[in-house]
């Protein structure tokens, strides 16, 4: 079928939207591998900046040259060529840039690289945005169909990486997504486009053959574990695979030795280990287990305190143990040493589950077949011991924007409830100074115990540490004097220090691993007082944010208080770089930059070109829609991260369903009249408000459902609001009596607030809670509603 002129527009919008969203999703993978997860947050800004810039460009140029837009509409293949070339070149250039964001504070070239990365990656989005914008400008009567094509194309684009990643990895996926629309050129009647398409395919093929696998490999930051371990002699990658969940590498090297929390008294050898890296950073190690005997080094680690108490309470050989979350990996050996009756593990990443299962094949360890939280939620009063290993990123601050639903008040409640009355929960993490991580764990555990109706939560907590690691041991049953003495003896023998136990005094703390002052003991003691009193004086006054984390705001390692940056800077040795690169600061920078860019973009057509394209109330309408849609999208992605066990799975599920449903909403809008806009908006606002009130309960309920049914349930929650979300934009585009330039300006305005809302949504989630995003969305649609009434 040959397509030309404006008849080619809608298929082009569909295919370019598909490629573009796939490119966007894969860019998040690119940043996660090349740098750290929190930088992948830049991608939303990159994409929406590109879209907005295209709208502004067209709005301005249309005022000066009325023939440009019709020309582009008749030759939409030009934009496809632009997308393909820039998608490919931006990946090649950015992957070759020697980016090292840690050097930004003292190497100005790194700032240039960062800006360049942002700008280069945004260019393909300019072409996609331009195509959609042109379609709205010249075919406003078909706004519903254009919206449908754009949304459904994007929905399938969200799924495409699922197919591409296992086959060709992130690099190959980016190239493939970038080159996919080139096939649309062959539907053109214009021979020049046929030739261009042929040349582009030929050039890409030649490049892929000549450059080889390097072209597909995204280079990880030199500070990540992968490049570091590979520098050890005789290190080699023995298995590598990539899915949307992340890139996993299995590394064999005799120099890998992982045993955090190990006592200085241990004199034996560690078993040989294989490192499993996720996105190039340390995730866990797999121990080589000899058939004759198990290495006993776990008995010399902090975690053994929990096993000792559990052993005192009952015979663990008849017990059931759950290893929740497989960070670190030493918990497997520890649990195997107990020779327990049943040993299960729960891990959110299916690829890692497969690797663990295959490595420990023949050992009595079984996959729970579900995420950590759901395993706990679906097995009440089942386990005798839960060992939770959760180490986080290798660099502090790199995960401050990531949700961690394994360590929240609700999570600990769920773990405790899934155990028998004598059950023991063990959590081990890195010790930090100033005390931060340990305080959050303590406060969260205290609150979880209190919310289970326990009157003196302090009687159910034991915390011990060595020089860089701490372990918290929790139980629903109050600790007895003999159990406390057991732990005190254990610490004395192995050279550990107590941080907290029922009845601890200052002289019990800071004896073997000595700080200048007993910082950890004092901070916990002060925190306990405030928790007992039920006030929040300590949390308010403390240098860092150590409030108990809840599922609605599960940012475990987000410690920085922006208002106390100066004190933190002084307290950490007046060295700026550690603070500057933490997620919270990056977020502020992103918000300021996005605000300035958005203002600039929207001001350009008005101030520079001295044009008045539209009425301001109409602009406000599209500004509100952009913000509202993004608030809803981020609310569901963040909310469903808990239920699906993974932000990536949640992202794919929400994006696919929302975009498809909104696309149909857009298509349906073609059958509606202008007068229907008001009731649609009213119903939408009410639904969003009801969801704001009920979403936490609904998500909590979904955890008790089996996998598969859970996703169906979540999807069904999304469909009604998503369908209605698709109506206001195309109906507004069609109904408002404006010039094509005005419509391009609407498109830009919508994009700009989407950028701002995506960044602002994280502030809301971190400070108020994820569910509040739905209230903000309802508010945004209320504003749009008021505009219609005017």
């Amino acid at each position, binding site marked *: 079928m040959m397509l030309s002129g404006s008849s080619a527009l809608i298929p082009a919008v569909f295919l370019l939207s598909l490629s573009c969203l796939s490119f966007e999703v894969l860019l998040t993978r690119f940043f996660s591998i090349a740098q750290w997860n929190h930088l992948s947050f830049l991608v939303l800004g990159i994409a929406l900046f590109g879209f907005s810039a295209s709208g502004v460009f067209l709005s301005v140029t249309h005022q000066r040259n009325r*023939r*440009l837009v019709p020309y582009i509409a008749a030759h939409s293949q*030009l934009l496809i060529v*632009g997308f393909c*070339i*820039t998608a490919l*070149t931006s990946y090649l*250039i950015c992957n*070759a*840039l*020697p980016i*090292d964001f*840690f*050097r930004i*504070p*003292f*190497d100005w*070239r790194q700032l240039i690289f960062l800006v360049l990365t942002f700008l*280069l990656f945004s260019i393909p989005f300019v072409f996609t945005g331009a195509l959609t914008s042109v379609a709205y400008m010249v075919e406003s009567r078909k706004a519903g169909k254009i919206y449908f094509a754009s949304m459904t194309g994007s929905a399938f684009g969200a799924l495409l990486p699922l197919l591409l990643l296992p086959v060709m990895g992130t690099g190959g996926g980016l190239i493939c997504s970038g080159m996919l629309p080139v096939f649309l050129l062959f539907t053109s009647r214009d021979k020049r486009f046929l030739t261009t398409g042929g040349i582009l395919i030929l050039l890409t093929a030649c490049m892929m053959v000549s450059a080889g696998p390097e072209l597909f490999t995204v280079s990880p930051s*030199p*500070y990540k574990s992968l490049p*570091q371990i590979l*520098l050890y*002699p005789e290190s080699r990658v023995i298995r590598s695979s990539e899915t949307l969940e992340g890139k996993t590498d299995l590394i064999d090297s*005799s120099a890998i*030795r992982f*045993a955090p929390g*190990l006592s*200085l008294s*241990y*004199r034996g050898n560690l078993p040989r280990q294989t490192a499993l890296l996720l996105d190039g950073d340390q995730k866990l190690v797999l121990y080589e287990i000899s058939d004759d005997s198990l290495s006993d080094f776990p008995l010399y680690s902090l975690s053994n305190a929990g096993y000792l108490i559990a052993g005192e309470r009952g015979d663990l050989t008849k017990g059931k143990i759950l290893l929740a979350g497989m960070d670190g990996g030493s918990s497997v050996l520890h649990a195997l040493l107990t020779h327990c009756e049943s040993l299960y593990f729960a891990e959110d990443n299916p690829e890692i589950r497969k690797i663990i299962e295959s490595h420990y094949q023949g050992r009595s360890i079984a996959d729970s077949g579900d995420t950590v939280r759901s395993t706990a939620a679906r097995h009440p009063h089942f386990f005798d011991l839960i060992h939770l290993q959760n180490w986080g990123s290798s*660099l*502090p*601050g790199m995960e401050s924007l990531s949700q961690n639903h394994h360590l929240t008040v609700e999570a600990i409640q769920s773990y405790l409830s899934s155990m028998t009355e004598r059950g023991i929960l063990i959590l081990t993490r890195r010790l930090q*100074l*100033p005390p931060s991580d340990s305080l959050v764990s303590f406060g969260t555990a205290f609150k979880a115990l209190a919310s289970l109706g326990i009157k003196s939560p302090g009687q159910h907590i034991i915390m011990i540490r060595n*020089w*860089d690691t701490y372990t918290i041991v929790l139980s629903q049953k109050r600790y007895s004097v003999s159990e406390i003495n057991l732990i005190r003896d254990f610490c004395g023998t192995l050279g550990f220090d107590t941080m907290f136990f029922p009845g601890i005094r200052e002289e019990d703390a800071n004896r*073997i*691993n*000595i*700080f*200048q*002052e007993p*910082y950890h003991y004092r*901070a916990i003691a002060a925190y306990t007082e*405030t928790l007992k009193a039920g006030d929040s*004086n*300590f949390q308010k*006054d*403390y*240098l860092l944010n150590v409030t108990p984390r809840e599922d609605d705001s599960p940012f475990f390692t987000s410690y920085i208080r922006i208002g106390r940056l100066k*004190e933190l800077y*002084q*307290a*950490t*040795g007046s*060295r700026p*770089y*550690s603070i500057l690169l933490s997620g919270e600061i990056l977020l502020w920078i992103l918000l300021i930059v996005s605000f300035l860019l958005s203002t600039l973009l929207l001001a350009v057509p008005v101030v520079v070109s001295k044009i008045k394209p539209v009425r301001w109330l109409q602009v406000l309408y599209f500004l509100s829609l952009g913000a509202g849609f993004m608030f809803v999208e981020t609310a569901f992605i963040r909310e469903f991260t808990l239920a699906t066990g993974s932000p990536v799975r949640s992202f794919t599920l929400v994006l696919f369903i929302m975009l498809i449903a909104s696309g149909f909403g857009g298509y349906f809008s073609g059958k509606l009249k202008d007068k229907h806009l008001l009731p649609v908006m009213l119903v939408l606002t009410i639904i969003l408000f009801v969801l704001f009130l009920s979403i936490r309960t609904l998500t909590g309920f979904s955890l008790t459902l089996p996998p598969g049914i859970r996703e169906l349930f979540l999807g069904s929650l999304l469909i009604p609001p998503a369908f209605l979300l698709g109506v206001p934009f195309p109906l507004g585009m069609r109904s408002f009596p404006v010039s094509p330039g005005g419509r391009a300006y609407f498109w830009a305005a919508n994009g700009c607030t989407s950028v701002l809302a995506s960044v602002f949504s994280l502030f809301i989630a971190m400070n108020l809670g994820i569910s509040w995003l739905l209230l903000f969305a309802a508010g945004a649609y209320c504003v749009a509603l008021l505009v219609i009434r005017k």
Partner: protein
Amino acid sequence: MKKTLILKILLPLLLLLPTVLLFVNGEQESQESQESVEPVISEGDRYEVARREMVLKQIASRGIKDERVLEVMARVPRHLFIPEGMRYQAYHDNPVRIGEGQTISQPYIVALMTSCLNLTGNEKVLEIGTGSGYQAAILGELVREIYTIEIKEPLYKRSTQTLLTLGYSNVYTRFADGYFGWEEHAPFDCIMITAAVNHVPPPLLDQLAEGGRMILPLGDPFSYQQLVLIKKLSDGYQVEQITGVLFVPMTGEARK
């Protein structure tokens, strides 16, 4: 119409490419020049002034009082341990990249770790993680013998060459896995671990003389760090946290 489009869209892209290549090229040149070690200080005066300022403003002002350490740090040419392309940062108050994903520690951290060992001049010291060789050179000026081990071959070769060129005859380098120490020369009066560890290797604890001190930094080069000093006693170990940061734990109400 088409020409206008090309001018507006493709031309800026074409102009952008050389700029990018220029930056990338500059960075690669820096990497390539890591191989060469300059035997003589060509810009001696400039570096000497920078070194004195470094000692005064970054080290002494932060509370390091050990005169011997201050004197040695003012004397050892730190810039010669850094790849040529990065030497302009040699005396800056930050870690500097030396290749292989490694850094040379911030001058203050080097001074703090060295002074924490309370060296008298007669010690035999083992260093794990030679890196650039700068820390070994500082120790070489302050102790009897220093044995240093590096697991990454390119770094081992480069640091050995630098130390040889600068005439450090009491510094012995080895390309090996530092986890197992250097048993032939044990016991050591002091051990310094300059690489990140998640546990203290048992063989190193064995090779530490009774009454000996082991120092290791916690934290990453680009994050805040603290130091841990382990003392081997007759009946076990004592671990002392020597904070490398000015830590103010609590203020106001929480202090009460």
